Protein backbone atom coordinates (compact mmCIF):
# COMPACT_ATOMS: atom_id res chain seq x y z
CA UNK A 1 0.00 0.00 0.00
CA UNK A 2 1.46 3.31 -1.05
CA UNK A 3 1.33 6.23 1.32
CA UNK A 4 1.64 9.81 0.21
CA UNK A 5 3.19 12.54 2.25
CA UNK A 6 0.81 15.25 3.46
CA UNK A 7 0.90 18.38 1.40
CA UNK A 8 3.02 21.15 2.91
CA UNK A 9 1.33 23.74 5.07
CA UNK A 10 2.24 26.54 2.68
CA UNK A 11 0.01 24.97 0.09
CA UNK A 12 -3.01 25.01 2.41
CA UNK A 13 -2.67 28.53 3.85
CA UNK A 14 -3.09 31.46 1.49
CA UNK A 15 -0.04 33.66 1.27
CA UNK A 16 -0.98 36.89 2.99
CA UNK A 17 2.38 38.61 2.72
CA UNK A 18 1.54 40.69 -0.40
CA UNK A 19 -1.71 41.79 1.20
CA UNK A 20 0.13 42.88 4.33
CA UNK A 21 2.54 44.89 2.17
CA UNK A 22 -0.29 46.72 0.48
CA UNK A 23 -2.14 47.37 3.72
CA UNK A 24 1.01 48.73 5.34
CA UNK A 25 1.47 51.19 2.48
CA UNK A 26 -2.15 52.33 2.76
CA UNK A 27 -1.84 52.65 6.53
CA UNK A 28 1.28 54.80 6.31
CA UNK A 29 -0.42 56.98 3.69
CA UNK A 30 -3.44 57.66 5.89
CA UNK A 31 -1.33 58.24 9.00
CA UNK A 32 0.81 60.84 7.28
CA UNK A 33 -2.12 62.44 5.51
CA UNK A 34 -4.14 62.79 8.69
CA UNK A 35 -1.32 64.29 10.73
CA UNK A 36 -0.39 66.83 8.06
CA UNK A 37 -3.96 68.00 7.87
CA UNK A 38 -4.29 68.50 11.61
CA UNK A 39 -1.21 70.59 12.28
CA UNK A 40 -1.50 73.03 9.44
CA UNK A 41 -4.07 75.48 10.71
CA UNK A 42 -3.74 77.98 13.48
CA UNK A 43 -6.33 80.19 15.09
CA UNK A 44 -6.72 83.69 16.39
CA UNK A 45 -9.21 83.90 19.19
CA UNK A 46 -11.30 86.91 19.99
CA UNK A 47 -14.35 87.70 22.01
CA UNK A 48 -17.15 89.84 20.83
CA UNK A 49 -18.37 92.47 23.20
CA UNK A 50 -20.62 90.80 25.79
CA UNK A 51 -23.17 93.51 25.23
CA UNK A 52 -23.54 92.38 21.67
CA UNK A 53 -25.76 89.51 22.73
CA UNK A 54 -28.94 90.84 24.30
CA UNK A 55 -30.48 92.63 21.39
CA UNK A 56 -30.21 94.00 17.93
CA UNK A 57 -28.84 97.38 17.11
CA UNK A 58 -26.99 97.80 20.36
CA UNK A 59 -24.13 100.21 19.95
CA UNK A 60 -20.78 98.79 20.92
CA UNK A 61 -18.59 101.09 22.95
CA UNK A 62 -15.06 99.90 23.26
CA UNK A 63 -12.29 102.10 24.53
CA UNK A 64 -9.32 100.74 22.65
CA UNK A 65 -5.69 101.38 23.33
CA UNK A 66 -5.17 101.37 19.59
CA UNK A 67 -7.66 101.50 16.80
CA UNK A 68 -6.52 100.12 13.48
CA UNK A 69 -8.46 100.89 10.34
CA UNK A 70 -7.75 99.32 7.00
CA UNK A 71 -8.81 101.49 4.12
CA UNK A 72 -9.18 100.34 0.59
CA UNK A 73 -6.42 101.82 -1.48
CA UNK A 74 -7.48 103.73 -4.60
CA UNK A 75 -6.08 101.10 -6.92
CA UNK A 76 -8.22 98.46 -5.22
CA UNK A 77 -5.22 96.32 -4.38
CA UNK A 78 -3.55 96.40 -0.98
CA UNK A 79 -4.99 98.26 1.97
CA UNK A 80 -3.84 101.48 3.58
CA UNK A 81 -3.27 101.14 7.31
CA UNK A 82 -4.58 103.90 9.55
CA UNK A 83 -3.82 103.97 13.26
CA UNK A 84 -5.85 106.16 15.56
CA UNK A 85 -7.27 107.88 12.52
CA UNK A 86 -3.96 108.70 10.87
CA UNK A 87 -2.23 106.89 8.05
CA UNK A 88 0.70 104.81 9.18
CA UNK A 89 4.04 106.16 8.02
CA UNK A 90 5.29 102.74 6.93
CA UNK A 91 2.32 101.11 5.29
CA UNK A 92 3.22 97.50 5.91
CA UNK A 93 2.67 94.75 8.42
CA UNK A 94 6.21 95.30 9.69
CA UNK A 95 5.49 99.00 10.11
CA UNK A 96 2.35 98.27 12.06
CA UNK A 97 4.19 95.76 14.22
CA UNK A 98 6.93 98.30 14.96
CA UNK A 99 4.37 100.95 15.84
CA UNK A 100 2.49 98.63 18.19
CA UNK A 101 5.68 97.36 19.79
CA UNK A 102 6.75 100.94 20.48
CA UNK A 103 3.31 101.66 21.86
CA UNK A 104 3.56 98.74 24.21
CA UNK A 105 7.01 99.72 25.40
CA UNK A 106 5.62 103.15 26.08
CA UNK A 107 3.29 101.58 28.63
CA UNK A 108 0.20 100.43 26.78
CA UNK A 109 -1.58 97.64 28.59
CA UNK A 110 -1.26 94.42 26.54
CA UNK A 111 -4.67 93.34 27.81
CA UNK A 112 -6.41 96.42 26.59
CA UNK A 113 -8.27 95.88 23.36
CA UNK A 114 -6.88 96.58 19.94
CA UNK A 115 -9.85 97.30 17.75
CA UNK A 116 -9.68 96.48 14.08
CA UNK A 117 -12.02 97.85 11.48
CA UNK A 118 -11.81 97.60 7.73
CA UNK A 119 -13.51 98.87 4.65
CA UNK A 120 -16.07 96.48 3.31
CA UNK A 121 -14.04 95.61 0.25
CA UNK A 122 -10.69 95.09 1.92
CA UNK A 123 -9.54 91.54 1.47
CA UNK A 124 -9.51 89.34 4.54
CA UNK A 125 -5.81 88.60 4.30
CA UNK A 126 -4.95 92.22 5.11
CA UNK A 127 -7.14 92.06 8.20
CA UNK A 128 -5.38 88.88 9.29
CA UNK A 129 -2.02 90.57 8.81
CA UNK A 130 -3.12 93.40 11.06
CA UNK A 131 -4.22 90.92 13.73
CA UNK A 132 -0.97 89.03 13.29
CA UNK A 133 1.06 92.22 13.77
CA UNK A 134 -0.90 93.10 16.91
CA UNK A 135 -0.40 89.65 18.44
CA UNK A 136 3.28 89.67 17.55
CA UNK A 137 3.63 93.03 19.27
CA UNK A 138 2.24 91.44 22.43
CA UNK A 139 -1.37 92.56 22.35
CA UNK A 140 -3.58 89.59 22.98
CA UNK A 141 -6.98 91.19 23.00
CA UNK A 142 -7.82 91.95 19.39
CA UNK A 143 -11.43 92.85 18.79
CA UNK A 144 -13.58 93.93 15.93
CA UNK A 145 -15.86 96.88 15.89
CA UNK A 146 -18.97 95.31 14.46
CA UNK A 147 -22.17 97.20 14.08
CA UNK A 148 -25.11 95.03 15.01
CA UNK A 149 -27.46 96.92 12.79
CA UNK A 150 -29.01 94.46 10.37
CA UNK A 151 -27.39 96.06 7.35
CA UNK A 152 -24.11 97.83 6.82
CA UNK A 153 -20.58 96.95 5.93
CA UNK A 154 -17.30 97.98 7.41
CA UNK A 155 -16.28 101.49 8.02
Amino acid at each position, binding site marked *: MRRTLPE*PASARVPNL*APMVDVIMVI*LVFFMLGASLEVFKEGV*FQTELDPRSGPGEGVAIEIIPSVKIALRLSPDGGA*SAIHVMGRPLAENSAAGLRSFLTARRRAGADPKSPIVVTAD*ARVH*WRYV*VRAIDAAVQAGFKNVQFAV*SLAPEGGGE
Partner: protein
Amino acid sequence: MKRFQPPKPISMTLNLAPLVDVMMCLIVFFLLASRLVSAQHSPLHLAAANAATQMERSELGPRVVINVRPGADGTSADYLIHRWDGRSIREERLKATELRAYLADRAGRAKKNDQPLRCVIRADRETEYAHVEMVLRACGLAKIANVAFSVNASDAEGDAP
Protein backbone atom coordinates in the same frame (compact mmCIF):
# COMPACT_ATOMS: atom_id res chain seq x y z
CA MET B 1 8.89 -4.58 13.51
CA LYS B 2 8.01 -1.01 13.81
CA ARG B 3 5.68 0.46 11.23
CA PHE B 4 6.88 3.41 9.28
CA GLN B 5 5.28 6.62 10.51
CA PRO B 6 5.52 9.75 8.41
CA PRO B 7 6.73 12.84 10.25
CA LYS B 8 4.05 15.23 11.45
CA PRO B 9 3.78 18.25 9.25
CA ILE B 10 5.21 21.38 10.78
CA SER B 11 3.76 24.68 9.77
CA MET B 12 6.56 26.89 8.57
CA THR B 13 4.43 29.92 7.69
CA LEU B 14 3.52 32.79 9.98
CA ASN B 15 -0.14 33.25 10.68
CA LEU B 16 -0.67 36.74 9.34
CA ALA B 17 -4.44 36.83 9.66
CA PRO B 18 -4.50 38.63 13.07
CA LEU B 19 -2.03 41.20 11.74
CA VAL B 20 -4.25 41.84 8.76
CA ASP B 21 -7.25 42.21 11.06
CA VAL B 22 -5.53 44.82 13.19
CA MET B 23 -4.26 46.76 10.22
CA MET B 24 -7.63 46.76 8.57
CA CYS B 25 -9.10 48.23 11.76
CA LEU B 26 -6.42 50.92 11.78
CA ILE B 27 -7.08 51.78 8.16
CA VAL B 28 -10.80 52.07 8.76
CA PHE B 29 -10.08 54.28 11.77
CA PHE B 30 -7.83 56.63 9.82
CA LEU B 31 -10.23 56.70 6.91
CA LEU B 32 -13.11 57.74 9.12
CA ALA B 33 -11.10 60.05 11.35
CA SER B 34 -9.44 61.96 8.56
CA ARG B 35 -12.76 62.30 6.82
CA LEU B 36 -14.43 63.64 9.94
CA VAL B 37 -11.57 66.02 10.57
CA SER B 38 -11.80 67.52 7.13
CA ALA B 39 -15.54 67.27 6.92
CA GLN B 40 -16.13 70.66 8.48
CA HIS B 41 -13.53 72.25 6.31
CA SER B 42 -13.97 73.21 2.73
CA PRO B 43 -10.80 73.63 0.73
CA LEU B 44 -9.91 77.30 1.14
CA HIS B 45 -6.84 79.44 0.78
CA LEU B 46 -6.49 80.68 4.32
CA ALA B 47 -4.60 83.86 5.06
CA ALA B 48 -1.12 83.31 6.43
CA ALA B 49 -0.13 84.37 9.93
CA ASN B 50 2.93 83.78 12.06
CA ALA B 51 1.55 84.45 15.52
CA ALA B 52 -1.49 82.21 15.34
CA THR B 53 -2.01 79.66 18.05
CA GLN B 54 -1.78 76.10 16.86
CA MET B 55 -4.48 74.16 18.60
CA GLU B 56 -5.94 70.74 18.26
CA ARG B 57 -9.52 71.01 17.18
CA SER B 58 -10.60 69.21 20.31
CA GLU B 59 -9.13 72.08 22.33
CA LEU B 60 -11.56 74.47 20.73
CA GLY B 61 -14.42 72.70 22.43
CA PRO B 62 -17.97 72.78 21.11
CA ARG B 63 -17.85 74.81 17.97
CA VAL B 64 -19.64 75.72 14.83
CA VAL B 65 -17.54 76.21 11.73
CA ILE B 66 -18.50 78.73 9.07
CA ASN B 67 -16.50 78.62 5.86
CA VAL B 68 -16.56 81.83 3.86
CA ARG B 69 -15.31 81.95 0.32
CA PRO B 70 -15.71 84.47 -2.48
CA GLY B 71 -18.69 83.89 -4.69
CA ALA B 72 -18.50 83.19 -8.38
CA ASP B 73 -19.39 86.80 -9.28
CA GLY B 74 -16.50 88.20 -7.26
CA THR B 75 -18.60 90.44 -5.04
CA SER B 76 -20.81 87.99 -3.14
CA ALA B 77 -19.67 85.24 -0.80
CA ASP B 78 -20.64 81.66 -0.08
CA TYR B 79 -21.24 80.70 3.53
CA LEU B 80 -20.61 76.99 3.79
CA ILE B 81 -21.49 74.73 6.67
CA HIS B 82 -21.49 70.99 7.13
CA ARG B 83 -24.38 69.09 8.58
CA TRP B 84 -24.71 65.51 9.70
CA ASP B 85 -27.94 64.10 8.33
CA GLY B 86 -27.69 60.76 10.10
CA ARG B 87 -25.94 59.03 7.25
CA SER B 88 -23.31 61.37 5.94
CA ILE B 89 -21.90 64.84 6.32
CA ARG B 90 -23.25 67.19 3.70
CA GLU B 91 -22.01 70.59 2.69
CA GLU B 92 -24.67 73.26 2.65
CA ARG B 93 -24.58 76.79 1.36
CA LEU B 94 -26.29 79.38 3.52
CA LYS B 95 -27.50 82.77 2.51
CA ALA B 96 -26.27 85.72 4.51
CA THR B 97 -29.78 86.16 5.87
CA GLU B 98 -29.84 82.57 7.14
CA LEU B 99 -26.64 82.85 9.14
CA ARG B 100 -28.18 84.37 12.20
CA ALA B 101 -30.94 81.77 12.48
CA TYR B 102 -28.47 78.93 12.01
CA LEU B 103 -26.06 80.27 14.61
CA ALA B 104 -28.88 81.04 17.04
CA ASP B 105 -30.15 77.47 16.67
CA ARG B 106 -26.71 76.04 17.36
CA ALA B 107 -26.15 78.39 20.28
CA GLY B 108 -29.53 77.45 21.74
CA ARG B 109 -28.75 73.75 21.56
CA ALA B 110 -25.34 74.31 23.14
CA LYS B 111 -26.90 76.32 25.92
CA LYS B 112 -29.29 73.47 26.71
CA ASN B 113 -26.25 71.25 27.19
CA ASP B 114 -24.62 73.98 29.26
CA GLN B 115 -21.69 74.20 26.89
CA PRO B 116 -20.46 77.54 25.59
CA LEU B 117 -20.33 77.50 21.83
CA ARG B 118 -17.48 78.91 19.82
CA CYS B 119 -17.76 80.06 16.25
CA VAL B 120 -14.80 79.24 14.04
CA ILE B 121 -14.65 81.42 10.95
CA ARG B 122 -12.63 80.02 8.09
CA ALA B 123 -12.48 82.72 5.48
CA ASP B 124 -10.65 82.57 2.20
CA ARG B 125 -7.92 85.19 2.04
CA GLU B 126 -9.54 86.81 -1.00
CA THR B 127 -12.88 87.24 0.77
CA GLU B 128 -13.95 90.82 1.26
CA TYR B 129 -14.13 91.92 4.88
CA ALA B 130 -17.81 92.77 4.61
CA HIS B 131 -18.66 89.08 4.30
CA VAL B 132 -16.62 88.14 7.36
CA GLU B 133 -18.20 91.00 9.22
CA MET B 134 -21.56 89.53 8.30
CA VAL B 135 -20.65 86.37 10.19
CA LEU B 136 -19.33 88.39 13.13
CA ARG B 137 -22.57 90.31 13.27
CA ALA B 138 -24.59 87.09 13.13
CA CYS B 139 -22.48 85.71 15.99
CA GLY B 140 -23.21 88.80 18.06
CA LEU B 141 -26.91 88.56 17.41
CA ALA B 142 -26.90 84.83 18.17
CA LYS B 143 -25.14 85.56 21.47
CA ILE B 144 -21.97 83.73 20.54
CA ALA B 145 -19.17 85.72 22.08
CA ASN B 146 -16.29 83.34 21.50
CA VAL B 147 -15.00 83.59 17.97
CA ALA B 148 -11.89 82.12 16.40
CA PHE B 149 -10.40 82.73 12.98
CA SER B 150 -8.62 79.95 11.20
CA VAL B 151 -5.43 80.95 9.46
CA ASN B 152 -2.61 79.22 7.74
CA ALA B 153 0.11 78.98 10.34
CA SER B 154 2.60 77.15 8.20
CA ASP B 155 2.77 79.35 5.13
CA ALA B 156 3.81 82.87 6.03
CA GLU B 157 3.47 85.38 3.23
CA GLY B 158 5.54 88.42 2.47
CA ASP B 159 5.32 91.72 4.27
CA ALA B 160 3.23 93.66 1.81
CA PRO B 161 0.56 95.88 3.37
